[in-house]
């Protein structure tokens, strides 16, 4: 009965036991994300959407702007063309192929979503980050800066998102850029509040106190400790915002503030154009609407699944 034998037997038996010592937050979150049905469906939808957005303009069977079947559609008489072998989604009021417009429009929709989210994220995170850093480590002066900035953010939040967007659009005129900026501006206060709140929560954590006690410079603490640990809600919000942005852009189009350029079909614009002919050609509205709903749903599902995966309260 040697000593090594004793240790070996024990090691074999201990190995059979489940280890409760944890994986890192991100690893654990990734594992839970993979096993989440919501994330799976959302991811699949987004993937499909991305593929269509990227290759859509190349695989579109017809030109999205050519009024090829102009003589078959008489919108003012309520005569439309429904889906058929040649035109899978039918024709719009000007005799254009709706399927081609749908494919090309996916890319525009994606662009509007991504760019307006980026605008909201960058500006909002900058404001929120400065405010949060000032509040956590800036002393009294920092807290004053923070409170002024937050008043401003509260003010922006007091405006209904649509009106904020309308105001921006009114100043900038009607264009795709306007829509992106208008939708992005609406997201600014949301991102700013989120990052600041998250940083404030982290700023009070013991590890920040420990870092300060070690004499690490404040700027370094903010950049290497507080910000990385505050990012997860922001990442979740980004995903959710992609959905909101696409829906808000559609609403702006409905209010007549969308992109007026007929050469660039976009789902929101297509939908708001189609609603005028809803009585006679409901399908014309249904295709872009379903496109918007499914895409928004994809981002929402993924965002929600990420939120659940990252929620420490739900771990274990």
């Amino acid at each position, binding site marked *: 009965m040697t000593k090594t034998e004793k240790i070996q037997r024990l090691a074999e038996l201990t190995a059979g036991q489940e280890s409760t010592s944890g994986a890192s937050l991100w690893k654990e979150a990734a594992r839970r994300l993979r096993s989440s049905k919501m994330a799976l469906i959302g991811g699949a939808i987004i993937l499909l959407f991305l593929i269509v957005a990227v290759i859509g303009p190349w695989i579109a069977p017809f030109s999205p702007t050519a009024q090829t079947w102009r003589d078959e559609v008489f919108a003012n008489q309520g005569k439309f063309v429904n889906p058929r072998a040649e035109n899978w989604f039918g024709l719009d009021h000007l005799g254009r192929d709706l399927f081609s417009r749908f494919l090309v429009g996916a890319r525009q929709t994606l662009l509007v979503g991504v760019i307006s989210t980026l605008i909201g994220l960058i500006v909002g995170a900058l404001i929120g980050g400065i405010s949060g850093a000032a509040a956590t480590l800036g002393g009294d002066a920092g807290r004053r800066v923070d409170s002024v900035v937050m*008043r401003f953010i509260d*003010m922006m939040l007091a*405006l209904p998102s649509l009106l904020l967007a309308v105001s921006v659009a009114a100043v900038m005129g009607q264009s795709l850029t306007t829509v992106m900026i208008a939708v992005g501006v609406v997201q600014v206060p949301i991102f700013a509040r989120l990052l600041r709140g998250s940083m404030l929560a982290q700023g009070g954590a013991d590890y920040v106190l420990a870092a300060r006690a070690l004499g690490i410079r404040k700027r370094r603490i903010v950049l290497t400790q507080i910000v990385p640990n505050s990012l997860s809600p922001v990442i979740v919000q980004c995903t959710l915002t992609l959905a909101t942005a696409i829906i808000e852009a559609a609403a702006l189009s*409905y209010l007549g503030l969308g992109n007026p350029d007929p050469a660039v079909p976009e789902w929101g614009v297509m939908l708001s154009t189609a609603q005028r002919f809803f009585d006679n050609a*409901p399908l014309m509205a249904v295709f872009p609407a379903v496109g*918007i709903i499914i895409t928004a*749903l994809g981002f929402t599902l993924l965002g929600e699944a990420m939120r659940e995966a990252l929620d420490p309260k739900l771990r274990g």
Partner: protein
Amino acid sequence: MLRLVARRLLQLIPTLLGLSVLLFVWLNRLPGGPASAILGERATDAEVARINRLLGLDQPLYVQYWRFLKRIVELDLGTSVQTGQPVWDEFTLRFPATVELSLLAMLIAVVVGVPLGYLAAKRRGGWLDVSAVSGSLIGICIPVFFLALLLKQVFAVHLGWFPSYGRLSTGLNATEVTGFATLDGLLTGEFDATWDAIMHLVLPAVALASIPLAVIVRMTRASVLEVLGEDYVRTAESKGLHPKVVRGRHVLRNALLPVITAVGLLTGSLLSGAVLTESVFSFNGIGQFIRTAIDGRDYPVLVGFIMFIAMTYVLINLLVDLAYSLIDPRVRVH
């Protein structure tokens, strides 16, 4: 309590002041400025200068701002370019319609959303939970105006269950007392008018309720799930209390706290939604008026509306905070 109200009201002042600065800057940045908005785009320079002098636009900016502010405080929001009527009068005329619509929408959202969210949490993972959660996710993803359009097409145009536009049927001769169509009927005894007004409200209110409903369902569900895991619920159970008491006194009461806050924050999106739904149903409220103001670049109306909405939003949230402090004793002390 009074001190809390006073302090919160004082806090409003800087917010509204800031907003007025923002709006003033915005007005000045508008392409062409008010002169071209009044005269149209083909106005000559001389005419523009005359109007500018008339409106005091040749004065230094701070003087202009001061006047702007004074007018807002006096509730003189200018004259609508579209109708030629004072903006304030236009609002007060249409305000009751929007209030009615928003209240009904919020009522639907709360009355349906809270029990649904609660049941979903209680039967977590069951079919009710799964359908409530997926339903609310889809609800958030449907553009409000498309939902309104769809409801109108199906229930008004095809099935004919509800009227498809307006606040009251055209043939109806209802006496107006308060401007609230449903209330007026009750006050004057014209119950058919009340019924008619309610029928007109149903579809727009349902469309408008979609987003608040979706948010409230998920919020209630998440909140109830959290509270169910709290220690004090276990304590209540350890006393052998009846499940009804545990649910009502210990779970729901605590779980509703975040939902109350959400209701306040949702008013913003409700008003955005009102602009869209009212215009789909030609429902003559503020929302539809704004829609036409956007089309007609009626800036005095837009400025007035934004100021008005911001104030409403802030006041509603003040009320919500007060309600919250009544329910949660922890807030009261501070």
